[in-house]
């Protein structure tokens, strides 16, 4: 393992110290509970938005805390969900009287811990909590025989759009319904060229030969469903876009936000090569791209690879997407 760390056990707490020092205008950090707060939280009368999950996906979620997006992000250990105590503390802290929405990615541990936290917050402080679980990964078969689809790229787009709605002062139920709608209209698929190395494990989670790629990966180094010979970007784009387009299904004339996300170890030049290919496929399918996002937003440590997310949008979603946002990881109009 070759990493810029001190002790694997200290990676998360030291990174949180770095975040606090690097972004004092955006956030404050509760180091004991490992929570990144919007600097001015709680906001009176505004629905509190909380997300969180394992660390190692930076800038998600701590990088999305700030005006226009999240009120708090709970950081777990690397690839391990946070614990109910953290989420409880965050829930109580950001409740400005309008209730709190938990944005949870569909992984067994995240769902269980957030469920326990919501039960405890309601019982202890009477906080009204609703939850939305993102599950946009088309690589996973959604059936009785799986834990359901993973929450991946749509989570970023959802946090932005729902963050804008909460900022407008909409009530909790409306914000939660919007979150459910965004999740339902988004689909994603990812691929890896290399594995990542979890610091505590010290070695790559899986091995890929020089001429192989893994298609349908998640964001935790969990291997994908298929291992294929390495192909040119054009073919990889088709492998990702086709199943996404077919799944909703997206129709000719649909308008989308197109999101090409890097897994942490792929340079932007390659992500733009991918975006070029994705865009040609969408043009050919008659899909209009209303807005786009290209970069490393929901990563998997230093894994090389990318994911493609499409979110079907209407005028209202585009307007909320364009609304000002001011966070360490996403910023415009502010």
């Amino acid at each position, binding site marked *: 393992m070759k990493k810029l760390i001190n002790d694997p056990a200290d990676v998360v707490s030291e990174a949180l110290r770095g975040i606090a020092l690097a972004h004092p205008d955006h956030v404050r950090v509760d180091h004991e509970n490992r929570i990144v707060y919007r600097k001015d939280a709680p906001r009176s009368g505004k629905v509190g938005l909380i997300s969180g999950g394992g660390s190692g996906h930076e800038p998600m979620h701590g990088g999305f805390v700030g005006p226009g997006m999240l009120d708090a992000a709970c950081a777990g250990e690397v690839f391990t*969900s946070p614990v*109910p105590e953290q989420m409880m503390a965050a829930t109580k802290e950001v409740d400005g009287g309008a209730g709190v929405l938990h944005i949870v990615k569909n992984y067994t541990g995240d769902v269980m811990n957030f469920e326990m936290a919501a039960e405890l917050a309601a019982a202890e402080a009477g906080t009204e909590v609703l939850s939305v679980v993102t599950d946009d990964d088309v690589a996973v078969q959604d059936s009785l025989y799986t834990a359901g689809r993973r929450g991946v790229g749509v989570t970023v787009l959802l946090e932005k759009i729902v963050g804008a709605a909460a900022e407008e002062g909409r009530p909790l139920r409306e914000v939660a319904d919007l979150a459910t709608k965004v999740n339902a209209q988004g689909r994603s698929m990812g691929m890896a060229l290399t594995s990542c190395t979890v610091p505590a494990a010290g070695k790559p989670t899986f091995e890929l030969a020089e001429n192989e790629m893994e298609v349908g990966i*998640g964001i935790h180094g969990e291997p994908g469903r298929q291992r294929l010979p390495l192909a040119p970007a054009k073919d990889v784009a088709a492998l990702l876009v086709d199943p996404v387009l077919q799944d909703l299904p997206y129709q000719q004339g649909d308008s989308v936000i197109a999101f090409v996300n890097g897994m942490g170890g792929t340079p932007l030049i390659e992500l733009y090569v991918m975006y070029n290919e994705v865009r040609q496929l969408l043009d050919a399918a008659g899909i209009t791209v209303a807005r786009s996002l290209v970069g490393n937003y929901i990563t998997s440590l230093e894994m090389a690879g990318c994911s493609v997310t499409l979110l079907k949008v209407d005028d209202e979603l585009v307007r909320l997407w364009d609304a000002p946002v001011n966070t360490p990881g996403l910023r415009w109009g502010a």
Partner: protein
Amino acid sequence: MGVDDFANWLRDLAGTLHDNAAYLTELDSAIGDADHGSNMDRGFQAVVAVLDETTFESVDELLKKAGMTLVSKVGGASGPLYGTFFLRFGTALAGVEVSAATVGEALRAGVGGILARGKAEVGDKTMYDAWAPALSAYDEAVAGGSDLRGALVAAAEAAAKGRDETVPLIARKGRASYLGERSSGHQDPGATSTTLLLESAARTLG
């Protein structure tokens, strides 16, 4: 059988999980996200720290505290699952004399907590594939007149068999389920840590 015995069990289990942390993580790398060993190790080191600084009056108090500690330190799925197990296991032993029969009932209550959180069935390739045969073997041993230790030994042996039988299964719960057929051929990390837990109990209790 009292507080000290259960504390010894938790200490023995913490040591066992520490020694097996790399092994559990390796199993988890194959079908999960490579953190089961480090998570269990971190959680049980925290339990040992609690044992070092607190004196417990009763078995249920001790076990409930262990459960709360796991919930608040482990995260992932293992935290709520093992945490809930110890919470309910402890609660069931409140105010009752520890015997082969009462521990059997408490084990069943603890595993009921795991099922309430995880909603797993036999064959899903989870820790329940070790727990289910372990509970049956335990009850059978008690019905046959076995004492606590004998019942725990029987439970640990059945758990080990259940653990081994997870190898060919296709996972239907947790992150391993994302792999579909590719999860087959790998031993389940949760069933493995459950077996370690019961083997440790058989060594130290009764």
